[in-house]
């Protein structure tokens, strides 16, 4: 049976959801060891030990790992990989930053954003903005994989009882330092884990109109708020709202696209949603080709009416 090392994404206190999908994917390959690298990250390590399917937790607690800088975390992982057959990371910005650096240090090709595990070294992954699905088989001695969170069920966050083992930190590379972070504070469900998402496009005109039209509907439904690239570029909302090939990949129960035409780039980020609802005044908009339920008309009257009737 293979031994799999999973990168735990965390904020030193709790484990982020994306890790749970990565654990599910890793369990299909072999015995899972979770790696928690951070500074004063004992709480996160304890949380990782509770995840169902995790056999062991490795805790690397050092100031060098405080902000998950790839220059410090990648050599740690590469060193640990002497004892493992595969390294699995969630395909979040943290995972995407670290995993390829690990792969190059190990001289192996990374398999990015897998959708399924087809065999011990065979995986499916989307290419061309999700317009094609490739099945690939690795010939490398060790695997480095990132996992698309929406493609795997989340492992149960509790019920496990793994032991936590300390590992020795590698030295700070001295190549990079953390300066600051601006994290958008929100009471809303996180986009990638929201059950319902209301998403707005360029048709919303400006930031104030976006807020006035989209927010009340999202509040009514307890939904996360997303946006197309056009809406982000126009400055209606911050860029971490962006759903698409180059933004977040989401697959909620219900995705409501308001004033979004449905460019390839956007569809790549949401077409695996269970039910897609589109509200758009253009009857020929490509979004209607993927929408389960479409409503053609002026969003400035329809959306407030919808919000009022819910």
């Amino acid at each position, binding site marked *: 049976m293979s031994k799999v090392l999973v990168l735990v994404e965390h904020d030193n206190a709790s484990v982020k959801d994306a890790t749970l999908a990565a654990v599910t994917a890793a369990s299909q390959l072999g015995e899972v060891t979770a790696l928690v690298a951070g500074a004063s990250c004992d709480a996160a390590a304890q949380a990782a030990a509770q995840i169902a399917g995790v056999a062991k937790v490795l805790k690397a607690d050092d100031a060098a790992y405080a902000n998950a800088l790839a220059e410090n975390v990648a050599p740690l992982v590469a060193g640990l990989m002497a004892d493992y057959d595969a390294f699995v990371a969630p395909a979040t910005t943290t995972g995407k930053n670290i995993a390829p650096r690990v792969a190059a240090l190990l001289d192996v090709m990374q398999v990015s954003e897998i959708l399924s595990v087809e065999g011990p070294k065979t995986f499916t992954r989307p290419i061309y903005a999700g317009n094609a699905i490739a099945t690939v088989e690795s010939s490398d001695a060790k695997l480095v994989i990132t996992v698309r969170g929406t493609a795997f069920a989340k492992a149960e966050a509790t019920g496990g009882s793994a032991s936590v083992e300390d590992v020795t930190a590698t030295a700070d590379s001295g190549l990079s330092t*953390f300066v600051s972070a601006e994290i958008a504070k929100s009471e809303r469900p996180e986009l990638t884990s929201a059950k319902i998402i209301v998403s707005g496009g360029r048709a919303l005109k400006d930031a104030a109109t976006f807020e006035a039209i989209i927010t009340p509907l999202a509040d009514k439904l307890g939904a996360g708020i997303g946006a197309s690239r056009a809406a982000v570029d126009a400055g209606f909302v911050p860029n971490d709202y962006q759903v698409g090939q180059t933004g977040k990949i989401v697959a909620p129960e219900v995705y409501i696209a308001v004033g979004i035409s449905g460019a390839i780039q956007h569809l790549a980020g949401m077409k695996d949603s269970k039910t897609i609802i589109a509200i758009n005044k253009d009857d020929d908009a490509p979004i209607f080709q993927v929408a389960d339920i479409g409503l053609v008309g002026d969003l400035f009257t329809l959306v407030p009416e919808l919000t009022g009737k819910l």
Partner: protein
Amino acid sequence: MKALVCVKRVIDYNVKPRVKADGSGVDLANVKMSMNPFDEIAIEEAIRLKEKGVVTEIVAVSVGVAKSQETLRTALAMGADRAVLVLCEDEVEPLAVAKIIAGLANEEAPGLIITGKQAIDDDSNQVGQMVAALLGRPQGTFANEISVEGDAIVVKREIDGGLQTVRLALPAVVTTDLRLNEPRYASLPNIMKAKSKPLANKTPADYGVDVAPRLKTIKVIEPPVRSAGIKVADVDALVAKLKEMGVA
């Protein structure tokens, strides 16, 4: 300082790719090809740094088929000073591309290497990080804003949930996100001038790189097609549907 910018020739982002009937890949015959959009942003950023006097020379590099020359000419027309084409008729994986770029970097000694965050064909998002690893240099991935301050570069990065700023020791590798800048168009006189700028031809063997693929593509298929939906007449009908689904 010298800037090395990596560009890739890919299917134009407006084209809807077609999967070949035999499942061997995506049909690229007679399809419009262009520079990867993230790489345009990379070139643009290098030019802006040159305009600020931070960068003295911009070298554009591409690994790929002979026609990648066109992509390099576009980079030269935008403002790159010279170009290097590493000729390879078969598809090259990110790890091999990264090794070639690292080899070229050892020869050229750039202060800054800029790549796009990902190519829109294989969607790998690996080359920049791998180049940084192979050279033992820091990486500023998904850059939203950069500024060179003495012997360091400050990179504001787009991360899940917001932005993160890091300070990297030069030389460094930066990968571009969409919002780093708005790339310029090449003017006709500059397109003409670009034809006489130097373009060197190299091969992977020049850098001692074996480009044999590590991943074997077994098949490529169309994604599952969504079943046709319905259109509702008015908001009441939509509300009824939402209630049916238990959402409202």
